[in-house]
């Protein structure tokens, strides 16, 4: 079913192309207006969403003001709500996920686009895209019953190498910020791989041939010529991945330990914004409590604005460096 709408749009219009496509073929203006409308739709939807979140979080916003962002108590019984531990947990788990997911994803994309024979590459990409369809509750269950025991077994090795840093100190119960980061990295990898692979494949062959003719090795060609050429698309895939990890709920909550406290160690439990919303929304009663959960949604939104902004600045600065 999905295939039909796909083929209609993406392929060349056939004999019975609809009036829309015919007009599109002749008129730049019409095409402009239609595509612009669609682009505007997303602004409208987002605006409506933010409006809803803002409206429904009026009670806690009035009561706590900005202190909601910087306090750490989350007490539904006493009606005290602070978002800081959740903000911290969200940022740290997403950062960990990208730290592991980007090298893994881009590496595999390079292999699939540049090294593997087309047939094998297509087959493997199929499988990897399938990874995106695994329901997050299954990631969560596998996380707690497979990944956590594995990490417990690996703990001495991790400690031996990295134990000197405060980030890997203190007791380790298996469920932790680290485990959440690992699960998230697995979940975001298919987005990075499959989009990056397509973008790398789209780099014109002449680019590669030029570098190879100059005596560059395969790796040098890939790293110095192909990747910079595909950089924008790869960045796009990373933004998608980042967004997914910021908003993931079920898989994170199963392995993060769900403790609204800030610990400097990655071995310690934590909590994320999306996880607490999913955990408590269905059971929350009363305007203040429900409002506080919705305000957390708003906070996550603000956090996403900031993180995306920072990531863009980072990308911009590295791109400039690459150019000079």
């Amino acid at each position: 079913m999905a295939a039909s709408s796909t083929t209609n749009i993406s392929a060349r219009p056939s004999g019975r192309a609809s009036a829309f496509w015919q007009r599109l073929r002749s008129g730049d203006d019409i095409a402009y207006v239609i595509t612009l409308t669609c682009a505007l739709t997303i602004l409208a939807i987002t605006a409506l969403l933010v409006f809803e979140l803002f409206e429904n979080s009026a009670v806690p916003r009035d009561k706590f003001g900005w202190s909601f962002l910087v306090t750490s108590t989350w007490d539904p019984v006493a009606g005290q709500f602070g978002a800081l531990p959740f903000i911290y947990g969200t940022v740290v788990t997403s950062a960990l996920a990208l730290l592991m997911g980007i090298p893994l994803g881009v590496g595999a994309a390079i292999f699939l686009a540049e090294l593997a024979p087309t047939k094998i590459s297509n087959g493997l990409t199929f499988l990897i895209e399938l990874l995106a369809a695994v329901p997050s509750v299954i990631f969560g269950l596998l996380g707690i019953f497979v990944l956590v025991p594995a990490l417990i077994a690996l703990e001495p090795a991790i400690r031996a190498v990295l134990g000197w840093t405060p980030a890997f100190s203190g007791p380790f119960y298996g469920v932790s910020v680290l485990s959440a980061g690992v699960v998230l990295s697995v979940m975001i990898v298919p987005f990075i791989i499959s989009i990056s692979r397509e973008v790398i494949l789209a780099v014109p062959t002449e680019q590669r041939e030029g570098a190879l003719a100059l005596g560059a090795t395969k790796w040098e060609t890939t790293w110095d010529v192909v990747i910079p050429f595909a950089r924008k698309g790869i960045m796009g895939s990373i933004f998608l991945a980042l967004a997914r990890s910021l908003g993931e709920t079920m898989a994170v909550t199963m392995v993060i330990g769900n403790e609204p406290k800030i610990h400097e160690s990655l071995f310690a439990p934590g909590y994320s914004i999306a996880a607490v919303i999913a955990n408590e929304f269905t059971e929350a009663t009363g305007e203040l409590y429900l409002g506080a959960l919705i305000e957390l949604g708003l906070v996550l939104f603000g956090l996403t604005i900031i993180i995306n902004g920072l990531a863009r600045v980072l990308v911009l600065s590295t791109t400039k460096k690459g150019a000079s």
Partner: protein
Amino acid sequence: MTRRIFIVNAALAAALTVGTASAQQVLINAAGATFPYPMYSKWFDEYHKKFPTVQINYQSIGSGGGIQQVTAGTVDFGASDGPMNDMQLKDFQDKRGSAILHFPTVMGAVVPTYNIPGVTGSLNFTPEALAGIFLGKITKWDDPELTKANPGIKLPSNNIVVVHRSDGSGTTYVWVDYLSKISKEWETKVGKATSVNWPVGLGGKGNEGVSGSIQQTANSVGYVELIYAVQNKMTYGNVKNASGEFIQASLASVTAAAAAMKDMPEDFRVSITNAPGKGVYPISSFTWLLIPSKIADPAKKKAIKDFLTWMLADGQKMTEALSYAQLPKPVIAKEVKAIAKIQ
């Protein structure tokens, strides 16, 4: 090719829209507590087999969700592991112009479960021990409060790792309701709700998350529903009741807790944790259906009333096969009378 897909598409869409619903079908939606979901799905299925025109679709979205949805009017009735409080009842009255009637359906219990290397049997827990552990005051397994209650069992001198539910849940409500009754400190410091600000411990999502964390963490202790512990063959502890006996949770000791309630209130909103009497498991609870007192659609009203009557008679016989404790006879008799209140 495109045309063929369109035809297939149109055919599919047509097939989907031409439904099976006929005029006499009564479709009832309900939502709420997760704990009784297997029981309810069994009942509604059996009832549908008996009366094929009645379809009751129950979904487990959580007790709080059940209260919210019945109040919002998106479902025909709700279900909850904790009774609605006065504020919620007033809210319902304001929004829907009628009252909510509580109907107890089955009973459950919450049990302490643990993973201590070298300890295989059932541990005895005093109320003081449970409160102390969950308040973070008892931190070692060989604390005198625990060793005193467990002569003959060698408890290690290891730190206790507490695991609790992270999602808001009726199970948590029953657990902290009990702790509030037996510990003043718990009542004032933490209180009772479906989610609380835990003094110590890791949070696990659902029974699954709690049991998974306990299984993988040495020296841990947590709580799960009795039915979950039984079905998954977990070891769980005995708890000292108000009469001073250490009681293992079982279907009989849970029903005993309800039977011990001498004065059941008219609206059935009652907590039976720490109930008095012999042979009573102290961390037990009812679970309720939340039925509006006025149902506009006569077909739905009849179906719901008929279902309640059936559930209190034939339905009760099916509970034990699924490890739920059945209601005591006096409660059933009282509920049968209450069905008439549905207008």
